[in-house]
């Protein structure tokens, strides 16, 4: 593990200022992604600016929006009564991330900022039409996830919270990679103020994306039968030893169908 300086930030703005002032510093939230990356030599930050003291955790439901602070841990979202009542698909999604240890440390901000192509939160954000609030601006989920492990965040920009419009119905179904248990295919569907949305994680070559052909089909009839036998476009599917593109394309259709069937 390479050496780094460590500092605690007192607010999002402070974190942003501090990280910009370092050579090649990095924000750290739960460390569930960053620490293993450092251990494996995949990341060698000169400085770690810790967000733990930046006052960014907490959940609130106001009007038509659930707002989750960036430092809120997966376990807190999974067990939050407010979230369970407002968007059960979201709390259910959080309860299926990793294992208890990971859920006890990993945060929504870290997950969204990292934009792992097989992570669950990006699907929830895109699937609900969330708004990502940073220390600087608001970014809609549609504009936020720009590619594998890349986002619209600028150098030193800190996510402060994520706002999820409460849908009429939604569901997330995850088909786990047998080894890593990340999403081999995960589909978040919703019908609500942000329209009909089908967001797919784990499958696309460019990471999380919206399956617009399913969305238009579902706008005709929100029922699982609408998606009977549908498939994603094989040429835009990722391929690896666990799932070749044709299998992923098939799974996207089948898991989306199941998500619609499960939506509440």
């Amino acid at each position, binding site marked *: 593990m390479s050496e780094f300086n460590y500092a605690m930030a007192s607010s999002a703005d402070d974190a942003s200022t501090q990280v910009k002032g370092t050579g090649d510093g990095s924000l750290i939230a739960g460390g569930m992604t960053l620490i293993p990356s450092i251990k494996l030599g995949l990341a060698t930050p000169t400085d770690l600016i810790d967000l733990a003291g930046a006052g960014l955790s907490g959940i609130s439901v106001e009007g038509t929006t659930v707002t989750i602070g960036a430092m809120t841990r997966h376990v807190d979202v999974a067990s939050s009564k407010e979230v369970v009542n407002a968007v059960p698909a979201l709390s259910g999604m959080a309860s299926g991330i990793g294992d208890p240890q990971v859920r006890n440390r990993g945060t929504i901000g870290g997950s969204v900022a990292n934009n792992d192509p097989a992570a669950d939160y990006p699907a929830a954000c895109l699937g609900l039409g969330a708004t990502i609030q940073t220390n600087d601006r608001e970014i809609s989920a549609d504009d936020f996830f720009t590619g594998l492990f890349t986002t619209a965040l600028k150098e030193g920009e800190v996510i402060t919270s994520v706002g999820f419009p409460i849908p009429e119905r939604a569901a997330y179904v995850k*088909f786990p990679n047998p*080894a*890593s248990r990340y999403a081999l295919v995960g589909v978040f569907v919703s019908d609500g103020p942000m329209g009909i949305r089908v967001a797919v994680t784990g499958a696309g070559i460019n990471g999380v994306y919206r399956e617009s052909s399913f969305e238009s089909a579902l706008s005709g009839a929100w029922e699982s039968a609408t998606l009977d036998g549908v498939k994603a476009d094989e040429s835009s599917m990722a391929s690896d*030893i666990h799932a*070749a593109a044709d*299998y992923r394309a*098939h799974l996207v259709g*089948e898991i989306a169908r199941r998500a619609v069937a499960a939506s509440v």
Partner: protein
Amino acid sequence: MPDGNTGIGAAVKRKEDGRFLTGKGRFTDDINRPNQTFAYFLRSSVAHANIKNVDTSAALTAEGVVAVYTNGDMEGVGGVPCGWGLTFQNGDPMVEPVHPILAAGKVRHVGDPIAVVIAETKKQAKAAAALIKIDLEDLPAVVNMTNAVEGGTLVHEEAANNICYDWAIGDKDEVDKVFDGADHVTSIEIINNRLIPNAIEPRVAIGDYDAVSQKYTLYTSTQSPHVIRLLMGAFVLQIPEHKLRVVAPDVGGGFGSKTFHYAEEAMVTWAAGHLGRPVKWTAERSESFVSDAHGRDHVTTAELALSKDGKFLALREKTYANMGAYLSTFGPAIATYLHSTLLAGVYTTPLIYSNIIAVFTNTVAVDAYRGAGRPEATYILERLVDRAARELGIDQVEIRRKNFIPPDAFPYQTPVALEYDSGDYEATLASALEGADVDGFEARKSKAAKNGKLRGVGYSTYVEACGAAPSAVAGALGARAGLYESANVRVHPTGSVTVFTGSHSHGQGHETAFAQLVSEQIGVDIDSVEIAHGDTDQVQFGMGTYASRSLAVGGSAIVKALDKIIDKSKKIAAHIMEAAESDIEFEDGTFKVAGTDKSMGFGEVALAAYVPHNYPLDVLEPGLEESAFYDPANFTYPAGCHICEVEIDPTTGVVEIVNFTAADDPGIVINPIIVEGQIHGGVAQGIGQALLEGCVYDDNGQLITGTYMDYTMPRADDLPSYVVSTESSRCTHNPLGVKGVGEVGTIGATPAVINAIVDALSELGVTDMPMPATPQTVWRAIQEAS
């Protein structure tokens, strides 16, 4: 058996678990020596290349670096030896290339060590290793065995067509004749997928040298400390045994992979001598993936000749067995003596021919992994039987029963060298059929169909040969060592006992099971018994623990030593109680003079032996300590029946194991909890091979499944609650009547799972299922069939 019952058959809780469950185990990595340094191995990141130059100058001057070694620095150091020599069909010896401690001239697999950096801290060693400049000339990688045997690129210049040996057992002409005239022939192509052992404790080795006594100590996470002392001392470093101590303290799982002598052990020992400082190496998990010997990796074509009513007439197979880049300690024996000899299984097949071609590839060495050869053979056989039954329209249970070796046929000589001493295959089959509620299967299947799921049931009736092995037989088969076990029983003056055993416990529970033997024989409670193992300075000698041999061979040695203790104790008791030795009866820890009320406790006799005031010193030595070496007369033959029931979601290919029943005959059971635990763990690994685990190399020899992100270990939620039962039949040739249980899970379970999947999918026209049967693999098989 004493009060409280801690003897044979008692379900006592494991003595060792208290320390393991409270984090107080003492593993090799817990050991730190004064003035210790740390080793980091720089390993090849490519599969095959000539080493043009290794420049260590920058590393040598890096902070904290004590030494950097490459192959050229190790003059006089031998290669890692292979413990088993095989021959080609014409009698020529197998090709046995040198396996250098550090790569010499060439790297042959990803993970092959090129240099070692020794520094004050682990971090410094690792950082300095990054400064070593390696100039490699890439060579094409030999990965796939089918391509390897066509020649072209050679892993070792001396191995033409990359073949290590081409070996066979059985009379090919006779077998072929039967095939030519048979009513029916069932054929199958089988791949026994390569597995990565993944013991929970990565390997660790610490070399230490004491300049005053000129003695070396190696602390290492091994299953066989004396064997390591012998192999490393005699063949690699030329250190005589009295100057070399090998200590294997608590070891966190091995599954075979820690039986072998590894280069890192020799490296740290040699370096400690060179530097006069202890040298410690702890494998990182990703290092374990590319340096622990892998398991399985056979590609087989097999055929079974049958009469039209389903009687097996002959079997023939040709297997390509991957040896990896170098021969590991037992590598060449696994595919042959532990594989081909198991092809009769529990059946009366009169003629068998097996041809094994061992192949070098640019991959990690392959050696014994829980079951070692026997799972591969059983998988071939039980898939063949399953398919033959389907082709002939015979019930799966019926075809097995029809071909079982009947209980009155023992001892039974198979056509492939083994003589089974005992067994009752009908008993375990009947128990499994009942446990699995096979009668209710059709109803469950229709219910599943209503939910869009396909249910299937799969059978596996197996026998294995374990308790390795009669030394004379092993020697005739190419083993370069004996396979007995040793024991020393030291009774202390007040009657407590220390047993020194050559077996090694790395999860098996010897501290409990062996203590139960002592408790049974001499009537002391298990808490008065200490089992000492794992230290060559403490234990007289040992062949170690592998091939389910500890109880059958190691336990028998203990019993033999205990018999001597009882004999001597009787003499002492006879003297003190003034009776004839023949009148002394020993029962429940008490010596009695027959027909009188005179008696002496075992502890009193022990005390008399150490305080010999009233003692027959003219005819008997004082003290109470006896040793024994036990060389088994035969292998032992655990057997059983595993039945697996699966439910498959045909739209996703997901397989769920809904029921798993194991009925096993492990011989006499010493501790039912330990036996059940061994079956549970073994079945988990057997299911792992069938459904989850598969080591994948790409065409360049890069390990694709090099982390847990891609290599699927069985997790609790992948596994059902098992229905486990034992139907013991006595082993006839060891004093305890025990057979073994360590490997039955991996041997029995795998084919039952795959047969169940094939059964579930048979209505869709699926006839075969590669392993691991991941969702994608199952889905694809369904697509291809429809």
